[in-house]
């Protein structure tokens, strides 16, 4: 079987696992939880196989155009972490890996309902962003030994931050006692917006597969709804989205009831949030910021140019540094730091995707 088949199997498995994890929250039946985990593990192995196959294929792709390149150099250049598609795939892989580790270490399955939707969002985004899935020749700027380590560590860091986001969001939901609290508005809007985007991408996906388009679609993200070229559809979508977020705000309190009675105590969620950030922060600092700067210096002679990608990485770094200091020396506890963890991941998403979609910079992912 080829690499895309294994990818598709894993994508299907993760989306199925998301639904079952959410069902597990509701029915609280142990068997359902075990099925969710089993499907996730299955998806993970399938994706790992796909990742390896793609690496091997890229290796031959590279050596075909660089016959004199040695084994180590070719392996480094062939690492499937070269464009938006490959990096998103690797992000999902890291996210699931870290999630599974936490699930086994903490012996709690409920977090899956908060982490797998992030994976599902990333997978849907791949299909609607119009990013190419082909193995592409490596442009000169990316032909560096730093590519593998910079991207690998950055994305492991991003994935750890993703898990901390899931845990912090769950923490805020669990500890918000009444609908009148400000944190209730915060989490209902964050989750409402997240679900809106997820559903929006789902509609994009369906509309993409039902309409036959001849031309290559560049960035179809939310084009079927909020960013539709038809003003009417866009307006209705916006009204619908706002109404949807309102409904989440109005009736979302039930989620807290669903979550109570599970093994997810606020203490465990707080601990998972911190542990993931404690893992992600060094990875992101070393892999993202430091290696990125060293690479920039060896390629352009400037280790820091304040381009939007760099600046947003730094903003992300500030937010997590703030989390760590507020928690350890600033005496911040509970919901306040959990909110910082949520904001941190919003900054991560913007660093990763927003900069490329909205702003420009050197990190055009080779395009």
């Amino acid at each position, binding site marked *: 079987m080829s690499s895309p088949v294994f990818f598709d199997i894993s994508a299907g498995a993760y989306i199925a696992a998301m639904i079952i994890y959410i069902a597990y929250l509701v029915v609280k039946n142990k068997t359902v939880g075990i099925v969710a985990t089993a499907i996730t593990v299955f998806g993970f192995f399938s994706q790992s196989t796909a990742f390896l196959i793609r690496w091997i294929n890229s290796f031959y792709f590279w050596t075909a*155009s660089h016959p004199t390149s040695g084994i180590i150099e070719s392996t480094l250049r062939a690492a499937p972490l070269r464009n938006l598609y490959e990096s998103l795939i690797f992000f999902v892989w890291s996210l699931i890996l870290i999630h599974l580790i936490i699930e086994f*270490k903490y012996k709690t399955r409920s977090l899956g309902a908060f982490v797998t939707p992030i994976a599902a969002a990333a997978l849907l985004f791949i299909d609607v962003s119009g990013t190419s899935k082909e193995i*592409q*020749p490596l*442009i*000169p*700027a990316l*032909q*560096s030994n730093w590519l593998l380590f910079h991207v690998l560590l950055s994305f492991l860091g991003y994935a750890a931050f993703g898990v901390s986001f899931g845990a912090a969001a769950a923490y805020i939901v669990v500890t918000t006692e009444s609908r009148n609290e400000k944190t209730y508005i915060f989490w209902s809007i964050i989750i409402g917006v997240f679900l809106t985007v997820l559903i929006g991408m789902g509609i994009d996906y369906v509309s993409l597969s039902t309409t036959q388009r001849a031309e290559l679609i560049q960035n179809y993200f939310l084009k079927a709804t909020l960013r539709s070229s038809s003003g009417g559809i866009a307006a209705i979508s916006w009204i619908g989205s706002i109404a949807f977020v309102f409904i989440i705000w109005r009736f979302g309190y039930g989620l807290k009831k669903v979550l109570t009675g599970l093994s997810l105590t606020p203490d465990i969620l707080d*601990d998972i949030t911190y*542990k993931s950030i*404690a*893992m992600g*922060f*060094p990875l992101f*600092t*070393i892999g993202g910021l*430091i290696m990125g*700067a*060293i690479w920039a*210096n*060896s*390629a*352009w*002679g*400037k*280790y*820091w140019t*304040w381009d*939007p990608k760099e*600046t*947003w990485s*730094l*903003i992300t770094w*500030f*937010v997590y*540094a*703030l989390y760590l*200091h*507020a928690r350890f*020396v*600033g*005496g911040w506890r509970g919901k306040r730091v959990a909110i910082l963890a949520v904001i941190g991941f919003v*900054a991560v998403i913007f660093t990763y995707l927003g*900069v490329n979609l909205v*702003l420009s910079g050197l990190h055009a992912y080779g395009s």
Partner: protein
Amino acid sequence: MEEKEKKDIFETVWKFFASVKLAIFLLIILALTSIIGTIVEQQAEPSKNIALLAKFFGDAFAPTVYNIFAKLGFMDMYGSWWFVSFLVLFSINLVVCSLDRFPKTLRLVKTPLRPLSENGIKSMPVKKELTIKTSLNTARDEFFNALTASGYRVYEASGNGSIQLYTQKGRFARLFVYVVHLSIILIFLGALIGIRFGFKGYLNLPEGRASTVAYLSPDKTIPLGFTIKCNWYDTQYYKGTDTPKEFQSELVIIDDGREVLKKVIEVNDPLTYNGITFYQSNYGMMENAAGYFILNISSGSGQENTLRLKYGDSFEIPGTGIKGTISDFSTALTRDRNTGALTTYSEMMVNPAVAIDFDIPGEKKFKGWILRRYPETGILPGGNSVKFVDFWGVEYTGLQVAKDPGVWLIYLASILMSIGLYICFFISHKKIWIQITNDRDHARITVGGSSNRNRLAFENDIEKILSRASKAIEERSKK
């Protein structure tokens, strides 16, 4: 009296800069203000940002808003006085905070561990109690061994019918947060050295030309102290595509009239001489440059020749009577999909081709296009061939020129920060006390411990030590 007042002011200032609140405030401010410069394009043409602002404020107000923003330094905000001031405050805050806390941490690290009372042990965050049927000394030996096996250096205190083992590990990890803080300061210092004693410039160097200066701006040069020459520039493409595979230039350094260094540079592989580094950054075509066509001709009998010809020049392949005249050139030749006519699809040398009017004895005169990237286009009858090597002298190589004497400090700081963060987050300061009390033919074990990080792993550690020791005691009792 005055002395005291001075001291008070100093203390107030110190306390202000040592406060965590200031640190939190500065992190928030830096994160928020940094966003501005990612939206407003930095050091750009005013028209660009006015067009951007018009989207938000309308055409009428955009210029006014632009002027206000420009006054606030938003157009070059990372160098603006207020942003730099925040960075300076941040550095002072970092230094003072660290100095303020360091002695306390150092004392904590240096103070030797003391035995605790049984109640003290029981009040530790991680605690365990068990009773084993064994003698005091056997229990002491086996717990000692188990702790040593886990890498702890064990101290011992004995009292009335009881022995206490106490130990700690990883206490130096507590100091590494200061290594991280120090590395940030070193990065700032490295950046300052780079700004003060280095430069970032550029140089567009045409093929075959040399320069003794680099440019900081179109009308500001900086002497290099030597001569740099570009022998050639070349873009290589992946076969059959227009995706660049490599951007390369051959550079030569001439110092004191002697050629001292020659290197083919490419992206990610620069050339450094006398602390100045030349990076491959772009390329382009010069206007109105008369280039040379470098052709490699070979005859069927194996004679080879490299020629340097101008537009309109003629040549002959020796011993064959084949004559050729250069009559046309295209930077990027292609056949139009619809009409089938030959056209040029790019002004850059993506697919260079030279047209030659051939005069072959016994054949009709004809015009042939020879494409550089497709050498098979130059094959002539009788084993003769013309290879289009280069159209030389019309391209320039775009170099980034940088001198940064502070960069070693940045690298040093990077290493320190990596080590510091790793130890800071992954090594914890663990303390364990094990009190063993003789209780007739039993030994009562009370274990207490604390860890500043990763308590879950620490609890597993303790479990391991306990089970190891109990198993060993059991083994011994069987013998």
